[in-house]
C-alpha cells in the first residue's frame, strides 16, 4: 500500500473521444430502421471515456489500496480467510468450463454435470449427509434454501409450524433467513460456557417449533458438545436441526454433521473449500440434507446412470428453483479442485491445523487480552477489549492499530454475546512466522494501550485514509458520482 497515491474516480479523468477498446467493423449490411417502435437513448450520459493505459493504471493503483490474503494474515473470525490456490483459478477459467452455456443440451455438457455430481458426492462424504444441492449462491442463500426445505417437509406432514429457535450467539443471517422463510424467531440464551443452554432449549422446544438453527462450532469457536442430546430434543418434538456450516473448517475429516443428528446444513465453499472471497463474493452455499428431505430439493437434480448424466425436473415435492441455472459453477469447479488436491488426509489436516493455529494464538495471547469464555477453542478464539478499556482503548483502536503493524484486523464486535469482541481465526494455511508476527503485534498493542493509548486512538497511521466518518456517510448518503453542474 502506497500511502501517497491518490486515485481519482474514473469519471474525473474521463475526456470526450477517448476509448480503450474497438470492435471489428460491422460485417453485415447496416439496417436503418433498427428497433422500430422501441425508444432508443441518445447516449449514456457521463459514461467514462479513457484509454487502455489509463484503465490499467487506474485498477492497478486501486488494487494497491487493498489488503488481501495474498499479502498476509487475514484473521477475520468466522470468515475463514485461507490461502486461495492459484491452479484452481486457472482451471475455473478453462475454456471448456468458462465457455459453456447453461442452456446447452445435457449431452453437450457432460463434463460440467460430472463436476457438479462429483462435488455433491464429496460433500456428502465430508458432511455425512445423503444429498447436496449446489444451487445456492452464498451461505445466506443456503440458509434460506435449507429453511425452505424444512418448511416443505413440515407442510408435507400437514403443519409448517411457527417458530425457529436460534442461539443468541448466531450470525445475523440465521434469523433473517428464517424470517424470509415465513417463520418467527425465538432466541435461545447461551450458558456460561457460551454454548446452548439445554434448560432454555427444553422450555422453548415445543411442537410449534419447526427447527433449531445451530452453528457448530459456534461463533465463539466452541464445539457444542451436547449436540447429540440437542438433536434428540428437537427430533423428539418433530422439529429439524439446521446447521450453519460457516465453521466447518474446524470439523473436516474429524466429525461429520450428519453423524451428530443434523438434518440440513449449508457449507460455504468460499470458506472451507478455499475459493476466493473476491472482496465480498461470489460465494457458494451448497445445502446438504438427510434422506427425509431429499424429495424437496431444488430442481433440477442431476442423475447419473452408467456414467451418463441427465437433469431431473420431474420432482413434484421440490421447493422449486432458488436461483437460475446451476449455482455459481466456476466457484464449484474451484472447490472440486481443492478437494482433489487435498485427498482424504489433506481434508482432515484442514481441521487439525486450523485448530492448532487458533489454539496457538489463544494460548499466546491469554493474559494479555480478556477471554470471556474459557471453553476449549476450535478454529477460532474470541478475545475482548475488557483489559484495554481500563486505559480508554476499545476493540476498534486495537483493530485499527493492527493495520499499522501490516496485518488485517480480526472480526470486531461479533458475536453479540461478547462485548468489545475481537474474533480471531487464523486458518490452517498460515505459517508460524505469520502467526508469531500477529501475536507479537497484539502484545505490542496491549503494551501501547497502557503506555501510549493516543497512538491507538489515532491509528491507522500508514494508510491513505484513516477513520472514515461512517456516521456522516449514512446521514448524508452520497452513493454515486455526479457531474458538477
Amino acid at each position, binding site marked *: 500500500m502506497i500511502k501517497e497515491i491518490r486515485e481519482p474516480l474514473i469519471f474525473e479523468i474521463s475526456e470526450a473521444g477517448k476509448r480503450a477498446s474497438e470492435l471489428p467493423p460491422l460485417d453485415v449490411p447496416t439496417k436503418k430502421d433498427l428497433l422500430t417502435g422501441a425508444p432508443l437513448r441518445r447516449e449514456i450520459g457521463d459514461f*467514462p471515456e479513457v484509454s487502455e493505459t489509463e484503465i490499467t493504471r487506474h485498477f492497478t493503483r486501486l488494487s494497491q489500496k487493498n489488503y488481501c490474503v495474498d499479502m498476509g494474515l487475514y484473521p477475520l473470525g468466522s470468515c475463514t480467510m485461507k490461502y486461495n490456490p492459484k491452479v484452481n483459478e486457472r482451471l475455473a477459467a478453462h475454456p471448456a468450463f468458462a465457455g459453456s452455456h447453461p442452456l446447452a443440451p445435457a449431452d453437450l455438457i457432460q463434463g460440467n454435470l460430472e463436476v457438479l455430481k462429483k462435488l455433491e458426492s464429496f460433500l456428502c462424504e465430508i458432511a455425512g449427509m445423503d444429498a447436496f444441492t449446489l444451487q445456492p449462491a452464498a451461505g445466506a442463500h443456503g440458509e434460506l434454501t435449507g429453511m425452505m426445505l424444512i418448511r416443505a417437509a413440515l407442510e408435507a406432514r400437514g403443519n409448517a409450524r411457527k417458530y425457529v429457535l436460534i442461539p443468541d450467539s448466531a450470525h445475523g443471517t440465521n*434469523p433473517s433467513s428464517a424470517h424470509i422463510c415465513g417463520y418467527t424467531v425465538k432466541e435461545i440464551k447461551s450458558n456460561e460456557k457460551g454454548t446452548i443452554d439445554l434448560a432454555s432449549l427444553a422450555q422453548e422446544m415445543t411442537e410449534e417449533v419447526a427447527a433449531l438453527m445451530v452453528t457448530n462450532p459456534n461463533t465463539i469457536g466452541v464445539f457444542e458438545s451436547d449436540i447429540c442430546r440437542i438433536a434428540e430434543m428437537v427430533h423428539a418434538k418433530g422439529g429439524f436441526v439446521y446447521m450453519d456450516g460457516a465453521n466447518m473448517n474446524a470439523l473436516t*475429516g474429524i466429525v461429520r454433521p450428519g453423524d451428530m443428528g443434523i438434518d440440513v446444513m449449508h457449507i460455504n465453499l468460499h470458506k472451507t473449500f478455499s475459493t476466493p472471497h473476491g472482496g465480498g*463474493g461470489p460465494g457458494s452455499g451448497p445445502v446438504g440434507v438427510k434422506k427425509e428431505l431429499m424429495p424437496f430439493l431444488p430442481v433440477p437434480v442431476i442423475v447419473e446412470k452408467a456414467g451418463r448424466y441427465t437433469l431431473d425436473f420431474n420432482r413434484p415435492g421440490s421447493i422449486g428453483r432458488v436461483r437460475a441455472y446451476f449455482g455459481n459453477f466456476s466457484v464449484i469447479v474451484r472447490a472440486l479442485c481443492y478437494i482433489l488436491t487435498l485427498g482424504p488426509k489433506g481434508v482432515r489436516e484442514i481441521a487439525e491445523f486450523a485448530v492448532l493455529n487458533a489454539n496457538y494464538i489463544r494460548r499466546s495471547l491469554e493474559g494479555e487480552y480478556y477471554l470471556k469464555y474459557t471453553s476449549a477453542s476450535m478454529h477460532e478464539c474470541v478475545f475482548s477489549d475488557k483489559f484495554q478499556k481500563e486505559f480508554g482503548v476499545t476493540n476498534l483502536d486495537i483493530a485499527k492499530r493492527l493495520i499499522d503493524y501490516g496485518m488485517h484486523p480480526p472480526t470486531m464486535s461479533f458475536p453479540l454475546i461478547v462485548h468489545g469482541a475481537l474474533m480471531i481465526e487464523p486458518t490452517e494455511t498460515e505459517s508460524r512466522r505469520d502467526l508469531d508476527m500477529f501475536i507479537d503485534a497484539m502484545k505490542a498493542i496491549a503494551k501501547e494501550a497502557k503506555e501510549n493509548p493516543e497512538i491507538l486512538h489515532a491509528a491507522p497511521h500508514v494508510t491513505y485514509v484513516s477513520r472514515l466518518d461512517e456516521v456522516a456517510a449514512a446521514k448524508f448518503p452520497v452513493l454515486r458520482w455526479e457531474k458538477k453542474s
Partner: protein
Amino acid sequence: MSYLSLSDKDKAEMLARVGAASVGDLFCCIPEAVRFKGLLDLPAAQSELELIRTMDAVGGKNAYGGHLSFLGGGAYDHFIPTVVDYLSSRGEFVSPYTPYQPEVSQGTLQLIFEFQTLICQLTGLDVANDSLYDGSTGAAEAVLMAHRVTSRSKVLLARSLHPQYREVVRTYIKNLGVESVEVGFGPDGRIDKAELTRSLDDQTAAVVTQSPNFFGVVEDLQALSEAAHGVKALSVAVVAEAMSLALLEAPGKLGADIVTGEAQSFGIPVSFGGPYLGFMACKKEFLRQMPGRITGQTVDKDGRRGFVLTLSTREQHIRRERATSNICSNQALCALRATIFMETLGKQGLREMAWQNAQKAAYAADKLAAIPGVKRKFTGPVFNEFAVELPKPWPAVDAALRAKGIVGGYGLGAEFAGIGNAALVCVTELRTKDEIDRLARTLQEVLS
C-alpha cells in the same frame, strides 16, 4: 498435497505451547461417540500436474465447445477485452474479504462506488446497490422490496419474464403470503395490455416485466409503468441482457421504480450459469428498502475523501430478522469485472457493441425468416435475440442442427405451452456474417 505452511518442528513446538500431546488432543471436546474414525472415502491427493490432467479430461467431456452456438436466454457470449481478465486476476482484488475495514479496502470500495454510478447511468435511476447474486434472485428481491414498500401482497409477473426467474420469484414468495399472477403476451411478443389492465387492482404491489423480454422483444415500459402507477403499484423492470441498456432508453426514464437484472454480459464468461452479477437500482425514495450492500462516499478524520459500506442498518448483521434481506455478500469480483469492462468499452464502445448486436440479430432474423416455412414468431422490436417459428418440431430440428455442429437456439415449447415449434435465437457481436449465413444455410437443409 496440501497448502499447509507448518514444518514438523513448528508443529511440535506449537503443540508444546498449547499443552497438547498430539493434534488429536485438540479435539477432546468432541464426544468420542460421534468422532469420525479413519479416513474419508475421497480420491487420493493429486499433484498440480495430475489435477490439470484430471480437469482437462473432465472438461473434454463437454462437447458444447466444438459447436457454433446461438444460445442466449439470460446468458450471453460477448467479447471480453484482455484487460478485464488481466486486471481482475490481481490477488489484491481476488483474495480480500468484504471491505469492513475501509482503511485497507479503498480499492474495492472505490471500484464499487464506480460500479454503482455506472449502473445508475445505465438504468436512469438515482441509486444502485453493490450487486446481488444474479438476475433471478434480483427479480425475487425486487418483488419482496415492492411488497415492503407498498404493504401489498399481489404481484403481476409477465409470462415473458425469464421462466427460471419466474420460478425463483415463486420459490421466494410462497412462504410469505404474497401471491403472483401471470400476465400473458400478445402476437407482438409484448405483455398483453388488456390482460394486464384486468389484473391490476388496489392490492397489486408491483408489475414485473422483463425488457427485452425472454423472447428478445422490447416492452413498452412507459405504458406499463403508467398502468402500474395508476393503481399505486411499483413498476419493476427486469433486464436480463444488460448490453441492451447501452442502446435502449434507460428504464428509469420510462417510469420504472426499480430496475434489476443480470449484468453477466459485462465481461463475465457464460461459465455454465455462474457466478453472475445481479444488479439493482431504484428511485431515491425507496433507498432504505433496498436489499444488499451499498457503498457511500465520506471523508476521513483529516478531511480526505474515502469510501465506506453504508446504510447498514438495513442489513441482517445489525437488524437480524427485521433486515430488508438476508443477503450478506455481494458479487464483488464479478462487479469488478463488469466495472473494468464498462470503463474499457466506455461511452462509445459500449454503445457500438450493443448496436452491432442489434444489427447482427436483425440480419439473422431476416435471413432465417427468408427460409421457406420459417417465420418470425413475434412482431415486436427485438434487441439481440428473437423467436422463430419452424415447420417441424424443435427437438428434431435441434438434433439435426447439432449433427452439423450447430446449437441453433433454445426451444420454447417446454416452458411456454401452446407456443408451437418455436425457438429462441441469439446473435451477439461475436457471431460473424459467415456464421450467421452458415446457420441459415444449414437450417434450410435440415428443414427441406
